[in-house]
C-alpha cells in the first residue's frame, strides 16, 4: 500500500489509515509540542487535531 493509498483512505474517513498516518507523523507532532524544553500534553492534542485537519484539507 502506497502513501497515496493511505492518504486517500484517511481522507475518506478510514480510521486505520488515519492511525497509520498518526503513527508515522507522531515524532513530528511531539517535536511540535515542546514548549520551553518541555512536552506540552495540551499542545500535543492540538497537534493531533492539526494532523486530522491537514489530512482533510491537503489536496492530492
Amino acid at each position, binding site marked *: 500500500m*502506497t*502513501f*497515496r493509498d493511505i*492518504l486517500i483512505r484517511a481522507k475518506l474517513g478510514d480510521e486505520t489509515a488515519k492511525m*497509520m498516518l498518526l*503513527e*508515522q*507523523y507522531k*515524532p*513530528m*507532532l511531539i517535536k*511540535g*509540542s515542546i*514548549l520551553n524544553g518541555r512536552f*506540552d500534553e495540551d*499542545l500535543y492534542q*492540538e*497537534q493531533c487535531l*492539526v*494532523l486530522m*485537519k*491537514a489530512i482533510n484539507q*491537503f489536496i*492530492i
Partner: protein
Amino acid sequence: MVFQRNEGQEQDEILQNRFTSYLLAAVHRRRAQYIDEEVKAQKISSLMEERTMDSTFDLEEEALSEIPLYMRLQNEKLFWALSTLTERERYVFFACALEEKDYEKLATELGLSYKGVAAIYYRAIQKIKKKMKEELL
C-alpha cells in the same frame, strides 16, 4: 511503518514529501498560535488580578467612607423608631433583619408559633415605618 527519508524520485514519494512539508508548516503555525494564546491568557489573568485587587480596595473604601455616612444619617431616625418598640419586637426585628434567622428558629427560641413571630416582625416593621415617616413630617 517506519518514517524514513525518501529520495523524492517516485510520484508517491513526491506526494509524501509534499504532505510532510504541508503538515510541518501547519504544526509550526499551531505551535506559534498556542504560544500567542498562552501569552494572551497570562496577560488577561494578570489584568483580572489587578482588577479584583482594585475592586477590593474600592469596596474597602466604600465601607469606610460611604456606608457609615449613610448609616449615621439614618441612624438618629432609626434609633428613635427602634426605641419605641417593645423589647420582644426589637429582638425579633434584629434577629430577622440582621442575623437573618428564620421564623421557625425564632419561634422555638421564644416559645411562639411561626405565625406569632411573623406577626411580631410585621408589626415591628410597620411601627418603624410609621415612626420614621412621623419624623420626616
